[in-house]
């Protein structure tokens, strides 16, 4: 009895154990929320505000209603940047994911030795910084006759191309950079997925007399589905934010053939000091990402049935 009494007297004190624990917990999680409030949440809210203002970063802000959005949405270069981004998304992402699956399959084969050497070499591009990749491939895809790509296509009897200034040359060069850096990364992710498929499933389908194609169709692909969805999702979001490769490759010219949405946003903000339209562009990009992500989720759910 006495014991219970002292216990209850204790809980009446302000600093009881539960309070102490909760206080510690709030203290431990607070750095994230404080930093996020300053460098995350506030900037995002302020972006939505800025989208309706005219401002060069120095003078007075002026409310302009939807003018910035109107301005962006009637700017042919914005639409060009959007279509470029989408084209390079397709060019860079789809071959990358398909090849990733093929390579993962090859690496998972029981017949292969020296797996770790192949794994390490295929993964190495991912450790290289995007800037370095863009510089190296930029030199390969230069428009001069001595550019490596021009020499390679020359072996097949094709005349040297002006990669940096042609509509498809720029996109092909930039997509190649993305492709090269990310194939290995996705390969390893698929490999992890393949290794997670229990062998019994294959053995069972063997007993049922399934062919290799049937095994891939009815065992591998369904089991790999969540990982395929994940990689499509992440590479899509990455592709929509493409910035470094085009900036390094086409430089300060912001050439129309290679400008992407984020590059357009960067140019508006930091070259033209048009913070209002740049914020409007950021909001539009955000909406586009939400729409495309929702489509992704929707399609993933449909296939998932």
């Amino acid at each position, binding site marked *: 009895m006495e014991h219970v009494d002292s216990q209850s007297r204790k809980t009446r004190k302000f600093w009881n154990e539960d309070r102490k624990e909760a206080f510690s917990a709030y203290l431990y999680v607070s750095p994230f929320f404080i930093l996020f409030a300053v460098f995350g949440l506030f900037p995002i809210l302020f972006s939505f505000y800025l989208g309706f203002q005219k401002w060069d970063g120095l003078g007075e802000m002026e409310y302009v209603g939807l003018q910035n959005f109107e301005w962006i949405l009637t700017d042919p270069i914005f639409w060009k940047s959007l279509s470029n981004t989408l084209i390079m998304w397709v060019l860079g992402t789809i071959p990358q994911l398909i090849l990733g699956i093929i390579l993962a399959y090859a690496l998972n084969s029981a017949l292969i030795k020296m797996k770790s050497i192949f*794994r390490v070499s295929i993964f190495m591009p*991912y450790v290289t*910084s995007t800037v370095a990749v863009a510089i190296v491939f930029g030199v390969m895809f230069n428009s001069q006759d001595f550019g*490596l790509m021009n020499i390679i296509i020359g072996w097949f009897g094709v005349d040297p191309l002006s990669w940096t200034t042609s509509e498809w040359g720029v996109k092909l060069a930039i997509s190649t950079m993305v492709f090269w850096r990310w*194939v290995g990364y996705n390969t390893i992710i698929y490999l992890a997925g393949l290794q997670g498929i229990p062998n019994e499933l294959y053995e069972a389908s063997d007993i049922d007399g399934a062919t290799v194609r049937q095994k891939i169709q009815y065992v591998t692909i369904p089991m790999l589905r969540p990982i395929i969805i994940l990689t499509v999702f992440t590479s899509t979001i990455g592709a929509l*934010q493409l910035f470094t490769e085009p900036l390094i490759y086409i430089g*300060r010219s912001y050439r129309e053939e290679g400008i992407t949405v984020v590059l357009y946003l960067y140019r508006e903000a930091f070259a033209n000091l048009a913070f209002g339209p740049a914020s409007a562009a*950021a909001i539009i990009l955000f909406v586009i990402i939400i729409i495309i992500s929702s489509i992704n989720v929707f399609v993933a759910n449909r296939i998932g049935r």
Partner: protein
Amino acid sequence: MSTQASMKTKNTMEKGFIYLILAVAAILSIFPFYWMFVMATNHNSVINSVPPAFIPGAELVANFKNVINTIDFFGAMWNSLLVSTITTIGVLFLCSLAGFAFAKLKFKGKNFLFIAILVTMMIPPQLGLIPQYIIVTKLDWLNDLKAIIFPGLIDAFGIFWMRQYISSNVPDELVDAAKIDGCTNFRVYWNIAIPVIIPAFATLAIIRFMYIWNDFLWPLVVLREESSYTIQVALRGLIDNYVRDNGMIMSGTFWATVPLIIIFLLLNRLFISSLTEGAVKS
């Protein structure tokens, strides 16, 4: 007998085909590194001839001297190292502390706060770019590495990762026992959780270090003076010249890439599992 033989040839063919695919992929993955080295060791005039050099030359030192004369290479490498290391250590501490709170402590609004953290992962970083720049200007952090470090400490994934790891690897009984012995919450975190989560630290450290080391857009926006450049921003200075000296450009890029590649080759298993595990688990 004959079916066995045909099975065998089929297997050999399949094997050959798989090796061929992997070999081509490996060569295409490695070739740019080799080619970077070839150009870093050749004079620009040799590079810019038809056909260009395909074997390493003797200009290794000369090209690198040109790099040093064009950009502050070592200063930028140092800045990158400083920023990446400080941010990584900070992230390890803050994320494990927050992860510990979410995994082992009881408090009101725990689930709500945790979901809020997960939601922040969905927001594209460019959305707040301009106001972030304005905040940095107001704080007078332009050209200051603090502008990279502090926002870099925000790592929702890290908190998520640490929470998962602590939940499943630090036994509740141990935590309770320590508390009965009168340990403070911080002591429990420091003496019981930390030793257990070292492997998770390695993973998170690699992910975070690589992320900060390779980051480009944000440093480009807030670091305007050469003395504050990280290596990624400094490398851009190499290609911004009027005269394009490809030997020099590749030399700078090569030497900026080599340190990470060496670390990767030494710790390749840890690197590969860390960088991909994170993606799969989340």
